[in-house]
């Protein structure tokens, strides 16, 4: 962690006035969130010998009963956020495991009904890689293309359905671009056609309203660490009315109605419950505040020349902003923005030379996919941090464009798509 007394060899106007800004500024809330202090305090009560450390499955003594009570309460808290019954909630190690359990579990259980699954190209790897695995097992998977704004069109989904379709999986909110899919309509369609509908809600729970009474979703994945809870714990909503069956992926003791064996991590579960309780109470006020900050950031940046917003502006969660800065490469931009913790759609930040698959699926060309930055704002972001960010980003983009041959060519009116590149 740097403090502001360190001087960059940047334009002097960027050496900031004394303030209580702590650098680097965290703007990667979609990657993970710090735990809310209230969550950490709650969890601490379930760890040591003075706390409720018992195994919730110990039926025969007070230690077990106390832990079980805490788990029951947390289950209710998670259910309350989504207007579900606590009996619908299955604890897992995180949204990745929930996705695996939902998709493999449903696909395997209903294999006699059919072997076709429909999902979207922009899903999280936890869904895509699980589908690839099922393809290796002989299932057929259709990966739908979203529109340029990141949203999928219901008619295209309908057109993909066959008599073999048993499962549809569409994420509620996309982790890279923040767009919100219309899962309500998809759910109506799926239910009418008796196709199981799974939704990865890792990025939406606590940020967007979810009502399982009215949304016809059969399976829904949740993560704690995206909403100020601990890492390593998640949940899967499994509908009981109408009943959805799954083949368990973890065996050994029959916990969670046989769906997910393994001793329940009381402290983790309590943390998730508390995080979801706080989310339910503070979602409206958090969202207003975060949206105000996000809009401030966007307004500060959109006047920079050749800046492109990735994903629909309106159908997006309040804290998310994914922007491409044309003619500037993403990793060099991230290096220039070392005082910010953000993530990039650039290939350089991963091991391959391929840019973000999500941005490519939106139809973004390679340059724009390479030069994207994802800013995600959260509960602890301040106005000061946003203003500093605007300033820093504008200056960084300027400096990098001064260095960029592509910017020169653009300024000279050369159409880059007509150039024959000597690639290596």
């Amino acid at each position, binding site marked *: 962690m740097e403090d502001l007394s360190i001087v960059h*060899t*940047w334009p002097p106007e960027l050496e900031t006035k004394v303030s209580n800004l702590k650098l680097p500024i965290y703007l990667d809330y979609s990657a993970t969130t710090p735990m809310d202090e209230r969550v950490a305090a709650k969890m601490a009560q379930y760890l040591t010998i003075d706390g409720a450390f018992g195994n919730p499955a110990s039926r025969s003594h007070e230690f077990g009963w106390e832990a079980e009570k805490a788990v029951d309460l947390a289950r209710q808290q998670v259910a309350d956020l989504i207007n579900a019954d606590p009996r619908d909630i299955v604890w897992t190690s995180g949204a990745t495991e929930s996705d695996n359990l939902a998709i493999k579990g449903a696909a395997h259980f209903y294999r006699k009904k059919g072997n076709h699954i429909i999902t979207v190209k922009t899903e999280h790897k936890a869904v895509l890689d699980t589908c690839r695995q099922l393809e290796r097992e002989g299932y057929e998977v259709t990966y739908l293309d979203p529109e340029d704004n990141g949203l999928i069109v219901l008619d295209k989904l309908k057109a993909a359905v066959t008599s073999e379709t048993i499962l549809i999986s569409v994420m509620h909110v996309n982790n890279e671009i923040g767009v919100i899919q219309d899962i309500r309509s998809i759910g109506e369609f799926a239910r009418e056609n008796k196709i199981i509908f799974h939704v990865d809600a890792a990025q939406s729970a606590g940020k967007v309203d979810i009502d399982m009474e009215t949304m016809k979703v059969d399976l829904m994945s949740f993560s704690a660490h995206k909403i100020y809870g601990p890492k390593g714990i998640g949940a899967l909503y499994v509908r009981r009315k109408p009943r959805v069956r799954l083949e368990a992926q973890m065996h050994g003791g029959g916990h969670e109605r046989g769906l997910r064996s393994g001793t329940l991590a009381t402290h983790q579960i309590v943390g998730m419950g508390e995080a979801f309780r706080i989310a339910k109470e503070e979602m409206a006020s958090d969202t207003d505040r975060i949206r105000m900050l996000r809009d401030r950031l966007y307004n500060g940046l959109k006047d920079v020349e050749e800046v492109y917003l990735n994903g629909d502006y309106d159908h997006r969660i309040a804290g998310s902003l994914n922007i491409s800065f044309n003619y500037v*490469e993403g990793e*060099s931009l991230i290096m220039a923005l070392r005082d910010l913790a953000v993530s990039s759609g650039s290939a350089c930040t991963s091991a391959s030379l391929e840019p973000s698959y999500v941005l490519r699926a939106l139809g973004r060309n390679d*340059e724009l996919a*390479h030069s994207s930055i994802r800013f995600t704002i959260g509960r602890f972001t301040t106005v000061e941090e946003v203003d500093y960010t605007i300033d820093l980003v504008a200056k960084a983009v300027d400096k990098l464009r001064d*260095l960029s*041959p592509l910017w020169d060519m653009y300024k000279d009116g050369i159409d880059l798509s007509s150039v024959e590149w000597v690639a*290596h």
Partner: protein
Amino acid sequence: MAYSEKVLDHYENPRNVGIIDDDLSVGTGMVGAPACGDVMKLQIKVGDDGIIQDAKFKTYGCGSAIASSSLVTEWVKGKSLDEAGEIKNTHIAEELSLPPVKIHCSVLAEDAIAAAIEDYRQKHQ
């Protein structure tokens, strides 16, 4: 991702950023492709004595790419065309302590010099 100090230095204080107006004494090489996330443009101004008097670069690419091309403009100044052609990507990578995943940036810089030299030579055939 941790960057080496040398890479950071070239990035914060890049040497020889700019454009040389094209004429017979100038060789220009442009290599790479936006699709790969790396484009380097290297220019050399060659004196009548065959010695490189000035070099400028412009790069679209990550920190390692910027550093590699910046370093190369430093190294070619004062060299003859043949000597400049002997600069290998391994020298660049070593000087900048590039990690394996960034070696291709140094390869591109080597290609850029070769392209600039070739362009100059073509003009003087």
